[in-house]
């Protein structure tokens, strides 16, 4: 490509600023909107996935409630209570359980270390709880089997608990006071579930049952399944429900007696909702691109019409049709490429700003656009602009100069 042609194009562009702006704007705007859309979609997806990062997505959670149907002579409204036996039975009867844990809440009034006091939720659990809650140990260790067997008074504290009580001091090996009982801190953890999940203290379930509850009741239990699909997990829940119903004497159809949360189902639901959102975003995105294509095509057609007389003059002075078509096309390609790049940069820039200044929320975090898709969209607009310019330009370049000169 000769340099002279580029200079001719550049001078045409710089001397027709409004035309250049109008063509460029529709492209830049289309790409900008597409980037924002794709970025928002990704942000939404990241937010939702972050929600699931808190708990294992292959887990089933079991909570005892009250019966709602009369059964075998029992009146409705009876409270169901689960115990360690239920956990053992479940573990033995369901073959593909990976991790199983109970959870007992301890209501402690005062938790302190030296002169620092605080109020935190206390969960007493089995070691497998770590996998179910996706707890990340940053220091020391989690509750282990030895703690359970020996009724050790050990505690694993959240990083914010550590920050509050120990004020930067290394908590490992130190003793915290829970309503007058000393517990040795053996680990510190973080959790993706957010700040409230890091203001928690974990204790061995056996110790807590003995010290605070005096029984073998559990508030809930939960387990993860391996090699399970949505369907098989639903069958497992059905089996579990029948089993619990026969042991605790409630109607197997009484869903309120024991509440079972199947994360397989929830994950599946949210993911299908998300793919719905994704499809929606693509429809809107494609719509935006089509609007951009129509805009560019329109402007290019008007540009060629507007330039018909100029084309006639150029032909009278000795321009070949090729030189005219390539002039119009290159101008269109230069403008659309440049504008596409501007839209791309502006869109990515805005996403970066959002990333930097908007705190990540539960539903929106880390928006990132699919650059490949954006580049393809830009390419599409460039090609569309070129085609939209090519057809009328070729027509204008092939008519007799006298006709082109006649237009005003």
């Amino acid at each position, binding site marked *: 490509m*000769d340099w*002279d042609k580029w*200079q*001719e194009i550049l*001078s*045409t562009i710089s*001397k*027709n600023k409004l035309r250049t702006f109008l063509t460029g704007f529709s492209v830049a705007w289309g790409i900008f909107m597409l980037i924002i859309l794709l970025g928002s979609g990704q942000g939404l997806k990241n937010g939702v996935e972050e929600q699931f990062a808190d708990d294992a997505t292959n887990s089933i959670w079991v909570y005892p409630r009250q019966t709602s149907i009369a059964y075998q002579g029992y009146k409705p409204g009876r409270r169901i209570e689960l115990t360690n036996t239920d956990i053992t039975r479940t573990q033995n009867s369901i073959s593909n359980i990976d991790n199983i844990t109970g959870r007992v809440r301890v209501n402690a009034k005062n938790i302190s270390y030296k002169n620092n006091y605080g109020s935190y939720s206390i969960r007493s659990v089995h070691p497998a709880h770590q996998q179910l809650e996706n707890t990340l140990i940053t220091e020391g260790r989690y509750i282990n089997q030895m703690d359970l067997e020996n009724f050790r008074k050990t505690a694993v504290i959240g990083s914010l608990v550590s920050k509050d009580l120990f004020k930067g001091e290394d908590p490992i090996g130190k003793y915290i006071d829970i309503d007058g009982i000393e517990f040795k801190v053996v680990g510190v953890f973080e959790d993706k579930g957010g700040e409230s999940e890091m203001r928690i203290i974990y204790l061995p379930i056996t110790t807590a049952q003995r010290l605070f509850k005096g029984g073998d009741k559990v508030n809930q239990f939960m387990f993860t399944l391996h090699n399970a699909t949505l369907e098989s997990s639903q069958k497992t829940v059905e089996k579990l429900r029948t089993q619990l119903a026969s042991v605790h004497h409630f109607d197997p159809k009484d869903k309120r007696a024991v509440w079972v949360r199947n994360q397989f189902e929830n994950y599946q639901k949210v993911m299908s909702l998300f793919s719905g959102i994704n499809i929606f975003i693509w429809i809107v995105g494609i719509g935006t691109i089509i609007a951009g294509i129509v805009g560019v095509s329109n402007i290019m057609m008007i540009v060629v019409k507007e330039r018909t*007389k*100029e084309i*006639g*003059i*150029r*032909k*009278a*002075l*000795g*321009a*070949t*049709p*090729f*030189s005219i078509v390539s002039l119009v096309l290159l101008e269109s390609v230069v403008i659309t490429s440049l504008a596409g790049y501007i839209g791309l940069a502006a869109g990515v820039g805005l996403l970066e700003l959002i990333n930097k200044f908007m705190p990540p929320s539960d539903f929106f975090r880390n928006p990132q656009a699919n650059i490949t898709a954006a580049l393809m969209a830009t390419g599409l607009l460039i090609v569309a602009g070129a085609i939209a310019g090519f057809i009328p330009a070729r027509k204008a370049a*092939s008519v*007799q*100069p*006298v006709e082109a*000169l006649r237009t005003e």
Partner: protein
Amino acid sequence: MLHMIKLENIHKSYRIGKSGSLHVLKGIDLNVREGELVSIMGSSGSGKSTLLNILGILDNYDKGAYYLNGKLMANLSERKAAFYRNHTLGFVFQSFNLISFKNAMENVALPLYYQKVSRRKRNKLAMEYLDKMGLKEWATHLPSELSGGQKQRLAIARALISKPKVILADEPTGALDSKTSQEVMDLLKEINAGGITMIVVTHEHDIAEQTNRIIHLKDGIVENDVNDSEQKKKVFESLIAEEI
């Protein structure tokens, strides 16, 4: 002497609507020798502009033969047509046909762009031609900033820069006042004196009078082809009669 332009039985019709057609040129025979200064006259609809467009390869003809500088101008490819327009012909139009967003120098240099002359060289040449036309100070001005006479001188500079053999002028003074008209006509005569064949379409008698030869078109044929002042007067009289 070589015939710069030679027309043999040129016919041209325009299609009107779906089935109608308008027979504009009905067999034109015409020879123009190199270096001649010729005017083409005729009432509106006589076919004088159509004839000029065919001479300029701005339009094609239906029948007959057109030889430009000895070469037959028929079934030309677009490239060939562009080549002849660029190298052999120069145009001066009534409405100037300058490119509005290019400055005076760029407008003059444009024909050389299509001859692949380097930018620097063509701009230098353009400045020389602008200087000849007395427009050097206006080189960076846009056409819209120039007067009618300046625009036409600019257009003449543009027509001259490619050193054409023939200059075709379609009502070159039609948009100018009488004083400026005379200046432009003097310029065209001076260029003709340099050896360039000049064909001027005009309806102004005082312009036509200054050419060596008047070709009078009527209803698509050559009615008169005259070169002495007595005959010219007769042509003017018959033209006046036609207008009424």
